């Protein structure tokens, strides 16, 4: 079975500062890794995904993540955040391309001026 840990429930940051949202996973098999963003009162939008290949994955809105197999991590980064990045961010894992997603508990990113 897979599990995902997002240690930070909330990350406050000032506008234009860099940010890293941490995600660690546990799995006995190879996994696909995802980051989703949820803006207030909206659904889940895919930010980026790691399926195979390069361990550095670039997504939408300037976000990127690095898959580290030895540390079982998939941390999300952005070099300079905007107020509009304020949202809930969920890391998720799946054993295949078509099986269910297992989500972490989410990290609320709060960007202030």
């Amino acid at each position, binding site marked *: 079975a897979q599990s995902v840990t997002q240690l930070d429930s909330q990350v406050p940051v000032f506008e234009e500062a860099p940010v890293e949202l941490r995600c660690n996973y546990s799995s006995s098999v190879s996994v696909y890794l*995802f980051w989703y963003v949820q803006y207030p009162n909206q*659904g*889940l939008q*895919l930010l980026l995904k790691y399926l195979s290949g390069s361990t550095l994955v670039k997504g939408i809105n300037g976000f990127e993540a690095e898959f580290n197999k030895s540390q079982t991590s998939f941390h999300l980064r952005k070099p300079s955040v905007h107020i509009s990045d304020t949202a809930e961010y969920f890391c*998720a894992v799946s054993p295949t*391309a078509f099986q*269910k*997603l297992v*989500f972490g*508990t989410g990290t609320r990113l709060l960007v202030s001026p």
Partner: protein
Amino acid sequence: EPEVTQTPSHQVTQMGQEVILRCVPISNHLYFYWYRQILGQKVEFLVSFYNNEISEKSEIFDDQFSVERPDGSNFTLKIRSTKLEDSAMYFCASVRTGEAFFGQGTRLTVV
């Protein structure tokens, strides 16, 4: 860009009543899912559906829940006798290789 559509956006129902949540997945996708998110908690898998049958279900998905794809386009989640603890945001998703597309969700409030 194609999207997953869910209706209604908000449903209020009395405890014990039946509710049907509706989803229109992306037309050429083959795998469909329901997830739920209780307020302030993480998103949890409920059920997956492929080739007109359930392919996997979670412990949450007990006998009061059912899913069907009655007409080849809509994908519904029925809760037969709602409980207070069923209050949550319910998300439908359809999947193509490596990416799940989520609807905007239905907020179910059981009173």
